[in-house]
């Protein structure tokens, strides 16, 4: 294969070995993992944990699609179906999407990218992982006890008045998970502010760090509001007090305001870190500095900022006043601006770049297309008149799956494939991983494109039965989900395989510029032998070339 088709640059496999001392073998035994303060080990703990919960959430998705294969309710009863989609939502949102990129890749990479030895508070970092598991187990407990059927939104007065499922248990689990997320965000902000290496100015930071900074602001400011809201729901249920229940003088709209004040910014918590991954990947595989670096950096902060002023667009049909609906509709359009800045800048980065199509780049291309569709349909929904027609239909379901699955999950997989050689020191099978990327893309579109049409035709979400005429599209969707499932299983297999049999990756298989690629793979526990002094911009490929050439002469 000629050099124009790939930039992968592996060491000579006959002589290459993994480094003798790495963060993985620095200490041995289970306890050395369970009590570790090393951000890289905690990232790996998180990676295993969120993968576990991802497949539980995915199993529920599979069951939902299976039930929707036929118009009749034949697999499960109505209330069981409600419990399925509630568990799917709660697990995927709070146990997978929110921690997905930040807690794994962010944890692993942020300290290395800014040139420091660890996050500012390693013990709090570990605590956040334990809180994650505690919250996760409480949520699973609610599931085992009999489930919860409010949907992931815990909508009142449904959740406080009409239901006898395990709302309090599930809410408590989410409450605990919130603190896990707060501690991660707090750690990142302090680390980025206070721990940068000499010369690592704000505008020399990789965009991955910027996007995590923006997401961390949302975690720190938004999550406590969700916490107090869930406390109020639990108190209302336990003591029968009317905070949100209109029959007792409460206001269900208050719940909506408080809930979406967190949960709208939360969707940016779920997407911003993924955008950071895409910036790194696109730059590396186009061999170009990200076009409009400053604009992309600030657009992350702008998304975080605007994200706090659009929450009521989830409530257009819930009886908010016409004027506030109008204002929130206009504000919602604003979010499209920084998102579009990112998409256009990535496209310009590609323009005239030396593009190669390694697996992470395939996932990144998937992200670009799917996220754009997801974002554009978000503008449809932000438009007041359209929203009245489309809300609570499958159009909504398709929209947020395009953003969350087509966007964030694609970005997560792009990131995992991109940094896997750094995390483990080994390469995976290139052909299998490309197959997985393509399978995922096809499966995804087959699953969710029909749902746009279903929603536009008026099929409501959250029902286990539907009229006969919707069956064809639903069958397509279920078939797509099967393909998608295969696409997600594949990486599990070849990544596990690579741990033992993968080719030795060397320090910098992609010839990328980030600080993380200039150290050994897998890294040392302390990351750097001596604190790096940064004297170049991010994505400076000339600097890298110069440095590499210099290294060769030194060795020679």
């Amino acid at each position, binding site marked *: 294969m000629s050099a124009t088709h790939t930039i992968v640059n592996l060491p000579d496999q006959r002589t290459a070995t993994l480094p003798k001392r790495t963060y993985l073998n620095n200490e041995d035994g289970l306890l050395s993992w369970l009590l570790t303060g090393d951000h890289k080990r905690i990232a790996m703990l998180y990676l295993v944990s969120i993968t576990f919960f991802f497949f539980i959430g995915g199993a529920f998705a599979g069951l939902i699609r299976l039930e929707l294969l036929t118009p009749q309710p034949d697999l499960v009863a109505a209330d069981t179906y409600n419990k399925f989609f509630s568990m799917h939502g709660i697990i995927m949102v709070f146990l997978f999407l929110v921690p997905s990129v930040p807690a794994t890749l962010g944890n692993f990479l942020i300290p290395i990218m800014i040139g*420091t030895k660890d996050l500012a*508070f390693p013990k709090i970092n570990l605590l956040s992982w334990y809180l994650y598991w505690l919250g996760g187990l409480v949520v699973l407990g609610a599931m085992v006890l009999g489930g919860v059927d409010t949907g992931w939104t815990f909508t009142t007065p449904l959740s406080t008045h009409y239901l006898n499922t395990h709302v309090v248990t599930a809410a408590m689990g989410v409450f605990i998970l919130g603190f896990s997320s707060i501690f991660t965000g707090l750690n990142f902000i302090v680390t980025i502010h206070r*721990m940068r290496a000499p010369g690592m100015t704000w505008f020399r930071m990789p965009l991955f760090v910027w996007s995590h900074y923006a997401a961390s602001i949302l975690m720190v400011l938004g999550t406590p509001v969700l916490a107090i809201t869930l406390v109020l729901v639990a108190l209302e249920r336990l003591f029968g*007090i009317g905070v949100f229940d209109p029959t*007792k*003088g409460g206001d269900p709209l208050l719940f909506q305001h408080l809930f979406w004040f967190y949960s709208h910014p939360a969707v940016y918590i779920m997407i911003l870190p993924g955008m950071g991954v895409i910036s790194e990947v696109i730059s590396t595989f186009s061999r170009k500095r990200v076009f409009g670096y400053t604009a992309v950096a600030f657009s992350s902060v702008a998304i975080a900022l605007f994200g706090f002023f659009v929450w009521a667009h989830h409530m257009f049909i819930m009886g908010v006043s016409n004027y506030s609906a109008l204002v929130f509709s206009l504000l919602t359009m604003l979010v499209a601006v920084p998102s579009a800045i990112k998409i256009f800048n990535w496209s310009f980065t590609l323009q005239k770049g030396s593009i190669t199509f390694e697996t992470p780049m395939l996932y990144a291309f998937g992200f670009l297309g799917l996220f754009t569709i997801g974002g554009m349909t978000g503008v449809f929904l932000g438009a007041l008149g359209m929203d009245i027609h489309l809300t609570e239909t499958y159009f909504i379901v398709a929209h947020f799956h395009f953003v969350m699955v087509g966007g964030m999950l694609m970005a997560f997989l792009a990131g995992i494939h991109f940094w896997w050689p750094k995390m483990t020191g080994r390469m995976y099978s290139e052909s299998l991983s490309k197959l997985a990327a393509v399978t995922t893309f096809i499966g995804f579109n087959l699953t969710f494109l029909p749902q746009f049409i279903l929603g536009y035709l008026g099929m409501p979400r959250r029902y286990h039965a539907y009229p006969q005429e919707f069956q064809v599209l639903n069958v397509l969707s279920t078939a797509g989900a099967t393909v998608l499932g295969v696409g997600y299983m594949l990486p599990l297999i070849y990544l596990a395989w690579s741990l033992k049999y993968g080719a030795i990756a060397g320090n910098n298989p992609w010839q990328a510029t980030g600080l993380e690629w200039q150290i050994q793979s897998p890294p040392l526990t302390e990351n750097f032998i001596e604190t790096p002094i940064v004297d170049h911009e991010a994505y400076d490929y000339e600097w890298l070339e110069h440095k590499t050439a210099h290294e060769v002469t030194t060795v020679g």
Partner: protein
Amino acid sequence: MDNAIVATHPHTHETAVPAEHEHVALPQHRHHFETQEQQREAGTFGMWLFLLTEIMFFGGLFFAYLLYRNWYNPAFVAASNQLSIPLGTANTAILISSGFFMALGVWAAEVKKKNLLVLFLVLTTVFGLAFLGVKYFEYKEKWELHHIPGASFDVSQFINPHAYGLKEEPLAPDMAQKTQVFFFLYFAMTGMHALHMIIGIGLLFWLTWRANRGEFSAGYVAPIENFGLYWHFVDIVWIFLFPLLYLINRHPV
């Protein structure tokens, strides 16, 4: 090179820092920080961020208060008048005293006076406990009057205040029911505040024990300073709660 280096290493450009290279290596210095100064700054910054999350946490309750106070103003006025201003005022004074001793404690730690530090921490704890004691009697009175929201909540005092010797205007029955919303918010807000105090007092015991062992007498004062920030934050929450719950709408009758 540029200003960011100054931010990471505050002393780079200062000439009058003779002690910089002495390296008084404190045992509490963590390996991943370049300097002790950086460690201290990171800790304080982290604490401020945590307090920001606390503001957002209490913010939800304040928002609910704002809404329902506007909706059910007569009920909120009548119910608010049931709270004891003398006890609330006393508690405010007690809590400010506690905060004052905490501030003195931070000072004592910074000038490395071990015995004074222990003394001030103990005084902070004592006043904190006194606050909770007063709160206990306030809650107990509400219990006796059936003003705890829930199944046993009794509105007769608000429907027919004159029978109870109160000079309030009687409320219509459905508005009187809304006093329950006030009392719910009263218990949720002061209860959440008291919970923060209980956690704080637990931490105070721990810090006093460590101070007594001399851990904060050699220049490592970050835990005392950061706890001080937390304790003052808890004070400030009360400074908002007291007028909102007790004083607002008081008028001579």
